[in-house]
């Protein structure tokens, strides 16, 4: 039954229509995975590729992803660009301001392990995963828009596989 792709449903015809039964969990996570609103958080080079992904050719909106300027309205923070030691507390604070459930994508080499600034730099945070928990890492300097989109699709897959009880434990 392909009512909505990959959504486990049971349907039964009744006069004048059908009854559809499915689990709350799958509907909830389906909805979540298809409308990830991301926080407009760009610090360096990757921010330009994030802009390109949001604009005409790559069109992020078709994945249900729209940018928000406020952390309170967003589900996802795409850390696009180098995070320095001075910026790290601000990133943590933005993350804390977001509502649960929240996800983090580390975009580009800098956010994974310092990237080209790993050696000889006194100011760059070597990886953001000891500031905020990261769900998806996207390598590249900067990653192409296609790989950013693939990362986001992986994230939606990950959300669809979640269990409701996972949240409570978090």
């Amino acid at each position, binding site marked *: 039954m392909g009512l909505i792709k990959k959504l486990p449903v049971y349907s039964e015809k009744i006069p004048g229509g059908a009854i559809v039964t499915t689990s709350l969990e799958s509907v909830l996570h389906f909805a979540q995975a298809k409308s990830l609103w991301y926080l407009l958080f760009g610090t*360096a*080079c990757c*921010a330009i590729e994030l802009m390109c992904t949001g604009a*005409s050719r790559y069109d992020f909106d078709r994945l249900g992803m729209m940018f928000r300027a406020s952390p309170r309205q967003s589900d996802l923070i795409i850390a696009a660009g180098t995070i320095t030691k001075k910026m790290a507390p*601000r990133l943590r604070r933005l993350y804390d301001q977001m509502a649960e459930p929240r996800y983090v994508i580390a975009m580009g080499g800098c956010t994974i392990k310092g990237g080209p600034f790993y050696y000889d730099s006194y100011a760059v945070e070597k990886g953001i995963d000891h500031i905020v928990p990261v769900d998806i890492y996207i390598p590249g300097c*900067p990653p192409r828009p296609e790989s950013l989109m693939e990362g986001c699709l992986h994230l939606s897959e990950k959300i669809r596989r979640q269990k409701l009880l996972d949240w409570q434990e978090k």
Partner: protein
Amino acid sequence: MMGEIRTQEFIVNMGPHHPSTHGVCRLMLTMDGEKVMKVEPYIGYLHRALEKICENRTYHQCIPILDRFEYVTAMSCNYTFALAAEKLAQIEVPERAEYLRVIMLELNRIASHLIFFGTTAMDLGALTPFLYALREREYIMDLFEMTCGQRLTYNYIRIGGVAKDIPAEFVPQCREAIKIIGKKVPEYEGLLNENPIWKARTIGVGVLPPELAVAYAASGPILRASGVKYDLRRDDPYSIYDKFEFDIPTRPNGDVFDRYILRLEEIKQSIRIIGQALEGLPEGDIKAKVPLKFKPPAGEVYSRIENSRGELGVYILSDGTDKPVRVKTRGGSYNHLQLIPEIGTDCLIADLVAIFASFDVIMPEVDR
């Protein structure tokens, strides 16, 4: 009986994460209602110690690091560093390489001005120009991608020439791209030039008098929009710009509107230069012989070029080894941000956003 209504100044923290500060700049605003009484920029949220890194790298290894210094026009960072190193070691660059460099620099200038056009309009509340400008920018990204494989950080212009030759389909595709962009610029003008909201928000806002601009070493479009005709492509010539015919547009008023118009004019001039360069592109070598262990003689040099944000300078001090003793970079935005406290006071907070956007500040150039 109503008592006297008392007001109080308050402090607003704009940034470091704020959509209109183009990255991570923090402005501390002292406000009286909607009016900005005092602005104080706080920078350093993207200080990545590029200069320190360059001191421990060989000359060839510095070029990809400096790509990240000004990523919107990374070609010009490559070029400035290569120019300084070539001056130190007195390397003659083949003519074909110089033509390719000029084509890339000007394409990059157009791409950067398109970003400016899109983001400025978006900051002032118009989303359509952003989508239009980034649509046309992709033509240029395609050209860069087929030449050097990267969309943003190119590492293409090397010491002594360029990394590799252009593929055969570059020239026709480049002609096509500049033709399309040339047609689209009047369309952009049609979107905003006569738009009453746009005019109300930009004309007469953030006026920068020419004396102040020179005193604070403003450069590039900001300086020329204040009526000072100073373009390093003409006034401190480098590469082969003396072979091409192009105008240097200036504007009289120095407000946000003039800075916007000037950049669109510059796109048209860049298209003219690229057309001439494609016409005259000679055959020949693309790189002078530069050893992998490049050791320029001891000496020091400051080279500067005109990029889309003004004067981009690189100072190199060499002691004869394969690593520079000091690399100091200078970006236009560093000086432009200093101007914000000068002209950003006594205006509304919405005007401050317009002024900031019109300076086209890019933070890594400030923080390095």
